[in-house]
């Protein structure tokens, strides 16, 4: 799983959430920062800590709870969400389990039986579906309410918001969705479906966000227009304005780079 913060401030809050998700979903969660966020100076609001917050340890059984069970099965999907219950080492011999590198049954025992193994893989698919409900939702600004949208992630955010303001001066208004997690939250699919044309802005050569959107959602590929920036420098609003106008107002004169930056 991956979380995509847009600035150092959001890195802080998503890091907290990443720990909770990792324990709830019992899977590694990566917080994907980038060189711009990690190496440059940023203006950020004071970080705040909610003293009422308590970490989510997820489905964890203590000694008393395990002793009440007839037998403890680490990988059994009791609740239908694809997540088994776990225990910490040192609790009780009955609570012990083996995290193995080879195939196991849903009861945690070694197996080379194809059907038994497939049950475990199907459980992980259920967990993937559960994850989609738990990950941070996308940040959506749909005030434009038009047929054209812009999808992006991470540190593109600042340049995009500036570009959206500049584009308004050109009479172009776009809805904006900033994806914050993979697997994609359920609102991502809705946003894609609600727009006829979608710019996908990202800072890599291979259009990895666009690839994931085409693989993981029902979006029509023909609706997607990639705006890719990968010169090694952070993306600028000018690049986005130019890319959008080239598609929507071909032949229109774009203000010079200096003017766009004020």
């Amino acid at each position: 799983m991956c979380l995509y913060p847009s600035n150092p401030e959001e890195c802080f809050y998503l890091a907290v959430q990443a720990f909770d998700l990792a324990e709830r979903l019992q899977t590694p969660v990566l917080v994907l920062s980038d060189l711009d966020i990690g190496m440059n100076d940023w203006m950020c609001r004071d970080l705040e800590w909610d003293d009422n917050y308590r970490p989510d340890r997820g489905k964890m059984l203590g000694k008393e709870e395990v002793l009440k069970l007839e037998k403890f099965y680490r990988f059994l999907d009791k609740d239908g969400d694809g997540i088994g219950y776990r225990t910490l080492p040192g609790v009780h011999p009955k609570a012990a389990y083996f995290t193995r590198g080879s195939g196991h049954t849903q009861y945690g025992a070694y197996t080379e039986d194809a059907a038994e193994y497939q049950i475990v893989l199907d459980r992980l698919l259920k967990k993937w579906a559960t994850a989609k409900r738990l990950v941070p939702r996308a940040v959506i600004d749909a005030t434009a309410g038009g047929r054209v949208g812009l999808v992006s992630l991470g540190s593109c955010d600042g340049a995009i918001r500036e570009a959206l303001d500049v584009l308004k001066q050109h009479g172009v208004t776009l809805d904006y969705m900033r994806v914050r997690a993979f697997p994609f939250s359920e609102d991502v699919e809705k946003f894609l479906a609600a727009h006829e044309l979608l710019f996908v802005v990202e800072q890599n050569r291979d259009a990895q966000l666009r690839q994931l959107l085409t693989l993981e959602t029902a979006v029509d590929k023909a609706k997607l227009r990639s705006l890719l920036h990968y010169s090694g420098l952070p993306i600028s609003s000018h690049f986005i304005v130019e890319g959008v106008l080239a598609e929507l107002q071909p032949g229109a004169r774009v203000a010079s780079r200096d003017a766009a930056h004020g």
Partner: protein
Amino acid sequence: MTFIAKPKVAHPSLPKNALGLTRRDYEGALSTLCAGCGHDSITAAIVEACWGLGLEPQNVVKLSGIGCSSKTTAYFVGGGHGFNSVHGRMPSIAMGANAANRDLIYIGVSGDGDTLSIGLGQFCHAIRRNLNMLYIIENNGVYGLTKGQFSASADVGTKAKKGETNFQPPIDPVLLAMTLGASFVARSFSGDKQQLVPLIQAGLKHEGFALIDVLSPCVTFNDHEGSTKSYAYTREHYEPAVHADFVPLEREITADYGEGEALPVVLHDGSRIVLRKLDSAYDPTNRSRAAAQIQERIKAGEYLTGLLYVERSQNEFHQVNGTPDAPLNSLPYEVLSPGSQGLEKVLARYR
């Protein structure tokens, strides 16, 4: 193969340890390794050692990477948690678990491939941090799980099953550990349980990183003529230099150890490792001399075995880092989190 569950039946006359548990209580699932594999003998030695020390099974944590060796953590102490990590990354998992709970007993089982190739960096840093764990290398000189390619511990001149010769010099985990400052370094042979069991017990009780490199022949891919890691070759060329006996605190040191060459090393809990030199010229307490002697014997084609170097370790990971006496995972959230006021102080440092 279909899996056969091991019946949990123990004869009532089986001897019991201080906890009232039999050796059967320290076994695990049925081994799926080849019949005659040296690794199964090491598993049996671990079972014997843990039973003999009377360890609470739930306090034993078993960690491994990938390989035939790494499968064996499923075959002993079924009452303890086990973790088969990514290839060569067992030390990281051990590090994390040990950082969270310093009170448990950590046994890492790895192979010559897992430790000396893909996991070499991790192995070195676990030693450097003096992680309090027993690290056993089940060393057979080949990648058994992938059908017998030479590993990084294969000797120059040794022959593979199909006849090709190895020309690359081996990495010796014992010499490497000694140069990295390990405080407990041993070598043994899977076929010598009398030597191996007390070594495992001493390693478990040693506070800090304890390494036992166990020569463990691969019956399927490296037990033929021309191999320098076969049963026959190992039996001919291994040379016990220092016998180590573990003496628990509650037991008096008897006259057996009263000879001139017996050397007790007192551990942190007051128990001792009593060393008996079988090779009078060898000094297991002098790092540089011991390393030189091991190297000379390797040149002569011999493996010195036993507890080859030991010192009472002074700087186990938690001592260096000043962590609290109670396991970190037992501290309540309120104690661990500095809260909003703590965060304000941190932020103030950056203004």
